């Protein structure tokens, strides 16, 4: 044992061996504790579930108050039961759940909104969004300056009650948000539906960054918000291709007959992506005047343009089908003919499928 290498190896061996034993014991004990906790959780869950069910079916608020009083000391299980029920029921039942939350969990939840632990703040934000009444939303405003995931949770919570004040705050947060998160914002904002119209309108008027503009135009189309037709059309000649693509997409969702001229112009755009989207939108309009443009699209050298032209022609109904049949028979352009044949086959199989 005089050799230093031997000493190092022996000490290393002892250290790693002890560490391994400790780790093994830790894993086993942890598993036992987790299993025990899960079993306990399950037992309590079933118990609380029964009582909550009774409270929901009761005619007065007495049982709800009893549940809140009885289980206030078990916030984790009670929270889970309330969340699970909230997803399943609607109407008066939801009011009962909210009443239980108010009595048993609200105070703790509000305290947790300012917890130094992120996971706790996150959970509290979620609960506030699900169970609180609109006045409590003011408490969420501070969280809009928190870490990105908390900001998103706060926005998600505020959007549950999409009153003008909350929406104004949400859009303000969106304005200040850096790019990586903005897609998630739009996903959340989408949930507020048509109520976002004045805010999107206001925002579109302020020439936002290209990324945000692209998302807002897409959002306007996805909801859809046809009243924003003038604002959206205003960006049809935007220098950024992505914006023009979304404009064409949105116009295809608005289904405003007046948009035909704009889409006709976009079908001749210098970028094929814009052409493809414009042709699809023209098909959605179901305007027979688009027949020529859509037929021309079938002969495009770009596959996507041909594909969207075929989609457009299928949308035109019998008129488009007839044109597809004509194109499928011509021999001058094999690609156009192949695309038309495929469209007709897909159409035929869609008629067969249940």
């Amino acid at each position, binding site marked *: 044992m005089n050799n230093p290498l031997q000493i190092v190896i022996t000490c290393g*061996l002892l250290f790693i061996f002890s560490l391994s034993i400790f*780790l093994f014991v830790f894993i086993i004990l942890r598993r036992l504790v987790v299993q025990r906790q899960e079993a306990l959780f399950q037992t309590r869950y079933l118990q609380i579930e029964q009582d909550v069910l009774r409270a929901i079916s009761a005619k007065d608020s007495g049982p709800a108050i009893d549940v809140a009083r009885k289980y206030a000391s078990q916030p984790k299980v009670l929270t889970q039961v309330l969340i699970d029920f909230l997803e399943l029921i609607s109407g008066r039942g939801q009011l009962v759940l909210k009443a239980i939350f108010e009595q048993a969990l609200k105070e703790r939840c509000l305290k947790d909104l300012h917890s130094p632990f992120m996971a706790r703040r996150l959970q509290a934000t979620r609960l506030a969004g699900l169970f609180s009444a609109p006045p409590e939303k003011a408490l969420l405003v501070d969280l809009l300056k928190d870490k990105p995931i908390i900001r998103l949770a706060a926005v998600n919570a505020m959007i549950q009650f999409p009153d003008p004040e909350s929406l104004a705050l949400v859009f303000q947060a969106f304005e200040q948000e850096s790019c990586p998160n903005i897609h998630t914002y739009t*996903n959340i904002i989408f949930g507020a539906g048509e109520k976002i119209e004045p805010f999107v309108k206001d925002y579109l008027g302020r020439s936002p960054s290209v990324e945000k503009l692209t998302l807002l135009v897409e959002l306007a189309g996805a909801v859809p918000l046809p009243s924003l037709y003038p604002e959206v059309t205003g960006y049809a000649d935007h220098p950024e291709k992505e914006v023009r693509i979304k404009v064409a997409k949105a116009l295809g969702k608005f289904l405003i007959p007046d948009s035909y001229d704009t889409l006709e112009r976009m079908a001749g755009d210098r970028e094929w992506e814009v052409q493809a989207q414009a042709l699809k939108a023209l098909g959605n309009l179901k305007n027979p005047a688009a027949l020529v443009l859509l037929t021309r699209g079938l002969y495009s050298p770009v*596959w996507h343009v041909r594909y969207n032209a075929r989609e457009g022609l299928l949308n035109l109904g019998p008129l488009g089908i007839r044109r597809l049949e004509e194109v499928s028979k011509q021999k001058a352009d094999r690609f156009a003919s192949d695309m038309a*044949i*495929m469209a007709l*086959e897909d159409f035929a199989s869609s008629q067969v499928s249940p």
Partner: protein
Amino acid sequence: MTNAFHVLFHLVSTAILVYFFLINSFYLLFVILSLVGIIRHQRITSYVRMREIFSLPLAKPISIIAPAFNEELCILESVRSLLTLEYPLYEVVVVNDGSTDATLEKLIEAFALKKTHRVFRKSIETAPIRGIYISPTEPKLVVVDKLNGRKADALNAGLNISRYPLFCAIDADSILDRDALLKVVRPFHEDPERTVGVGGVIRLSNGCVVRSGQVFKVGMPRNALARFQVLEYLRAFLGGRMGMSLLNCLLIVSGAFGLFRKDVALKIGGYRRASIGEDMDLVVRLRRYLHEQKIPYRISFIPDPICWTEVPENFRVLARQRGRWHRGLIDVLTQNLKMTFNPRYGMTGMLAMPFYLIFEMLGPLIELLGYTLFLYFVVAGQVRYPFAGRFFLLAIVYGMLLSLTAILLEEYSLQRYPRLSDIVIIAAFGILENLVYRQWLALVRVKAYWDIIRGNNEWGAMEKKGFSLEHEKP
């Protein structure tokens, strides 16, 4: 002369010892990083309700591409599983890569497939396509029948035919958890500008019960060889890949389950047809291209979307698989040698590529050299047995520590093995693997070099047993 030899041998053996400590320390570093990443991930996902966020019209549609070669035993179960996934908009493109068994016939019969005159954009050159089939009952399903051209070629054919901006490459003998797509797509929504690829966890379906296209009951495989692989998969996915993902230098997104941006994949010409390890090859070429173009990007690993796959249960097939993996690794690393130790490629060039080159590619050679030297010392009567014994024990205990940390990661992340005895079995196999299995694998991987020298570039057939099915009782 003899003295010079002895000095040289002692120098080499010291170098091997240093190598041993370095490799295990790297693994330990990755495991520690993974633990941090997994705990952070768990905290966030405990809040995020995937269905609420992603079941919206703005969620990006996905094309699942499943190349199939002689998969008649499990193809139907796999396709059924793929058709029942939870995701707003996706398609399933099964590419029958010239199977010589009844893979295509089974698909035609089960889904009433009809040959269609479908045209597609041939962005990448592939082996000729014999037919494209669609199903009147399953609108999401497209089956492509083509001449055999290997997996990379089949994936390229799927890429040509797919319609959506994201594609998920999976093995046709795998089963995805129902919410796997919802989970794996998360980075594409959180960081859409930079995210280029995302990988998920691969688990063994051996020993599990499959019901209605889903893994219904997770169990420990009965076969000893498969049990060794349980631990290997845990270490590789929850340890190595998660750790590398945190350092943004992940080089492998498993071919059995990976989601990528189609436009970027097409820019680099899709999968390289000649590649053997097509999954690693794609990721390395993506990284190379994006670094060279100075485009900011992320290729991440998410620890909870799960794909279940069947692993070999006999030595012959496992040797074939591992030999192929190692040939693939050598091929990718030598093809992209200029990235190694090249600061232009960031962490990929300075950490990941050297790590794979020194520890993964050359590892088996060095390991075998160590065993040979030990034998030489035994024959020459120069072994200091107390020292050698202690070193051997240290190697086992270090390996055990790594295995235990991988089990700990599993406990913190997924905890899919329900019984306590499963954990004990995995830990026991973590010790046993150091006795024969590890040495055998080193030999198999060294043989891969010999195969390359001989020009043997065969894929090698994988024999499958199929999933253990349990149908719902009426």
